[in-house]
């Protein structure tokens, strides 16, 4: 009887962690300052997965910052050395794993910036995950 109770408790815990989302965590969210006539910006952060795998489905930003935000990946064609960007449908976040959005790789592209991004200011991004739901992160604008 005691053993059965323990199993039930474990099952309840597992259920609880499912219902509570994947508990992703976001570290070091930042965006680079933009030049005055630069119409696109970029945001970066590190996503660490929780106990279960999750998926970043979309990002959104207030219209006071930019018209739209998308997940993009910069990559280099090894033959031509040309770098280009592709929109990414979604980002798999492995359980306990880390996905880094950084210059030259995955990033949030801010399209049609409404105003210049000025060092020292902050703005919010809403990240929508399949399990964790909407997670709001505050990006610090840096002159890096």
């Amino acid at each position, binding site marked *: 009887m005691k053993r059965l109770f323990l199993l039930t408790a474990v099952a309840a815990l597992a259920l609880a962690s499912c219902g509570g989302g994947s508990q992703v965590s976001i570290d070091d969210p930042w965006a*680079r300052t*933009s*030049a*005055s*006539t*630069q*119409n*696109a*910006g*970029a945001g970066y952060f590190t996503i660490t997965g929780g106990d279960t795998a999750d998926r970043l489905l979309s990002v959104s930003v207030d219209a006071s910052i930019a018209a739209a935000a998308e997940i*993009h990946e*910069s990559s*280099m*064609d090894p033959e*031509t*050395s*040309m*770098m*280009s*960007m592709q929109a990414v449908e979604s980002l798999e976040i492995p359980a306990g794993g880390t996905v880094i959005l950084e*210059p*030259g790789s995955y*990033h949030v*592209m*801010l399209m049609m910036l409404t105003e210049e991004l000025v060092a020292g200011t902050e703005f919010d991004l809403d990240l929508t995950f399949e399990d964790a739901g909407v997670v709001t992160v505050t990006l610090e604008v840096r*002159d*890096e």
Partner: protein
Amino acid sequence: MVGTPAIQVGHISLPAASHESVPLQMIAEPEGLLVVYFGYTSCPDICPTTLGDLRSAMSQLGDDSERIEVAFLTVDPERDTDFITTKYVQTFFPDAYALRTDDPEELATAARAFGAAYEVAKTSDGSVEVGHSAFLYAVNSDGTILVQWPFGMSSELIRNDLIYLLDQEGAS
């Protein structure tokens, strides 16, 4: 990365949108360096990262940074007007040259000379996709490319190379 044999670009000159479209020859001042980059202003990730790293490297050189001129050549002249290109690069470097030509052949000739590659494609939904090689080129007063830095080179390494190159040029 050093080209073998050394690549000469001194015969190339391009209209400097930042300087009333007076052509700028791809030659540094005596004992100086001209750092050239091929990019476009609506580039959110690669171009600002590279220009930011160069700015950071130059900011650690003290007065010697005045021996370095920066030129940004847009590969997307249809969208990058003279004004946009100038304001863009001068946000990073107040004295920089914004280079822009409406003549596709002139742009292609310049890119071939440097060994740079670019591609501007309009997609079916009307958006523009740009691909470009993302090297920074350091040119000396002979019009020789001394070094080309690939994307992702840290500002510390660029700074160290700049110190070395400025020493070499000053001693020659």
